[in-house]
């Protein structure tokens, strides 16, 4: 029932797989330097003892800045520089982004805490109405990179080959590069992992087996997306090169 995921910063190299924290609406975590006082400890001398709090509010979240004098910046990594500032002492500032990076200025280092809000709702093309209509359980933002990744994964099958092999991560990177010059294996992989969270993919029983787990995840994503028409043939337009004005560089 969680609606918000907090991904703690990596303070040391070997701490790559720190647990993500999942918050249900109304739940709150505090973060700061001391593990004793906070739900999420950020062991860095430049961070306040009680630095702030994150509260899940339905599908979005709010940030409280509990520090004495630092302004926190919440960036939208896909927003071309879009960000909000939360000054010291500000409580429960609402954050509208689906992906956010809270940057804590800490004695010269910048420690990013990622916060995902995968339950944001979007209007569907059918013109989704009030809460009384039967609605699909998924809501995707067609302007986000994850949607382009999903479209690239679904492309061979949408082009009329129902059993076509799925593109590899490298092929997806190549496919997306014209519109997304910075695409890389890692960023595509990150988006695949995020999609699995967002679409609430249930790990299949065969995934517990050995074998290429990654492949199972891609396969499940594509079959879910096609089964529920999350990506349709006319959505493949996101893969074609954008008008010249928008291409970076």
């Amino acid at each position, binding site marked *: 029932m969680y609606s918000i995921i907090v991904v703690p910063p990596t303070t040391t190299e070997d701490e790559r797989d720190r647990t993500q924290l999942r918050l249900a609406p109304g739940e709150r975590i505090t973060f700061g330097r001391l593990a004793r006082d906070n739900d999420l400890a950020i062991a860095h001398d430049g961070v306040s003892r009680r630095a702030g709090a994150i509260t899940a509010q339905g599908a979005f979240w709010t940030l409280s800045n509990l520090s004495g004098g630092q302004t926190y910046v919440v960036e939208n990594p896909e927003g071309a520089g879009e960000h909000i500032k939360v000054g010291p002492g500000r409580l429960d500032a609402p954050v509208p982004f689906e992906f956010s990076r809270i940057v804590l200025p800490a004695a010269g280092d910048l420690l990013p805490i990622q916060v995902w809000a995968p339950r944001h709702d979007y209007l569907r093309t059918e013109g989704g109405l009030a809460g009384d209509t039967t609605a699909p359980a998924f809501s995707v933002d067609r302007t986000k990179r994850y949607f382009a990744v999903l479209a690239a994964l679904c492309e061979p099958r949408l082009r009329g080959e129902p059993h076509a092999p799925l593109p590899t991560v490298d092929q997806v990177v190549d496919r997306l590069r014209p519109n997304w010059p910075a695409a890389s294996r890692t960023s595509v992989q990150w988006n695949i992992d995020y999609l699995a969270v967002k679409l609430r*993919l249930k790990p299949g029983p065969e995934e517990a087996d050995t074998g290429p787990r990654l492949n199972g995840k891609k396969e499940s994503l594509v079959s879910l997306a096609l089964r529920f028409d999350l990506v349709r043939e006319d959505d493949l337009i996101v893969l074609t090169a954008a008008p010249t004005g928008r291409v970076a560089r």
Partner: protein
Amino acid sequence: MTEPYAVPVPSGYRVGAWEVRAPIATGAFGSVYEGRRTGGAGDLPRVAALKFLPTGTDTPRQLAHLRELVEREIDLYRRLTRPRLIRMYETLVVDDPARPRLDGATVLVLERAQRSLADLLSAAPRPAAGPALLAQICEGLAQLHHAGWVHGDLKPANVLLMPDGSARLADFNMAAELEGTHAYTPAFSTPDYTPPELLWAEIGERGRRIRPSADVWAFGVLAHLLLTGSFPLPGGTPSARRDAAAAYARGHDELRLAPQLPDAWREIVRDCLARTHADRIGTDALLRRVEAAAGTGRSPKLPRAPLPRRRRAVLALVSAAATVAVAALGYGISTWADSGTTGGASTSGKSTSATYGASELRTDKGIPVQYRRLIVDSAHDCLQHEVSPALIAAMLKTESNFDPGLSDPTAGGEGEYGIARWTPSVLRWWIRSDGIPAKKTPQPPLTPAQSIPAMARYLCFMEPRLETSLPGDRRILIAASYRTSYKKVNAAGGVLPQTRAYTVRVAHYLKEYTPPVKK
């Protein structure tokens, strides 16, 4: 607010024996028109509701999922005719290449209702007939659940009112047939009527797992709305109410029902809106209480499902002593009440598949992880505690060494196949969770998902039929009956000589797979 019709059909359009008249309603998936019969067979009514679903190949958007939804609905209508469910007379497919948007559309010819409960509520909130309508809606749910189906989308728009004012359930796009304790429905829902455990629930490739208790939750919401004019959970928008439902389910908030709700109904709504699905009232007990509260006569007692498979009722017995009498009345399980201790063994749904059911099935003895969930869940669907996960695992090990591809065409008269070595003509009787034999004999390959639950059902059927005077471990006698039959085991007064080697192996693995400390 005018909505675009999902399928525009001109008035006067002819499809089959029907002429399309005025539009009635449009929903997320299709549009309904009134139809008037212009000829055709005499057993069809003069007017009907024509539900057009855009399944054609040339419709603007080729909706793959729509086809599945349509098939679900048609499947249910074909197989279920119950007094409180809208009837389907026939299905037609539009063949009209000149109209590409209509060509290929599926048309369901349905019983014509006067209006929907949603229409009634928007015209007159808190109708005087509310309690009687609720009794009829609940009766419809009980008929559906007894037939082994879950509605999945109960709400006022899907309850139709007939000219005589009686209510019937309709719109079965989300309905699903139970497989054991669960069914799989497409991942669609109406937020205000969705139980908290399905909010943002995990979705597998087969869709979302749903239980009959989801309909019970929706019924609780509907009852509150019908009797008080407001939703039971606070909030001005569906998303605010969704968050309130989530907070309530996590125990952060109490249920505060409207004060004008009469006491008898307050208890009913409260039991429908229990935080967890296991605490919710069973459909049969609910029906009796709704009928008592509504002051309507008792509906004729529904026939019991042919196989004992109602574990949920036992859980209710364990958790809420107060409902014992009612639940026993509904399910006729009073004789099993003393075996209810198995209820405590159910494992948390959160555990991963590798440790799934670890309290009843060892994790370190080479039982393939991918079958644990099937084995444990199938055993839990049986109320006889002898039919345990360890017994099923031991039998699968002995039968096939967990080989799903086992194929032994020469065994017996017609061969044995799959992980549980089923003889297909016998499997036919046990393959369906509702106890009805399959129409056709299943053909190999037989998947573990078919074989294992069917094995549990068959064992569950035989256990009470084995005489209690037989000597030896009952679990071994059950295994021996699987190889021969319970009649042969009863007649021989125990394990037959030719199955002795088999039962020795089962006994060995049974011991090996059972965790050392029982509970």
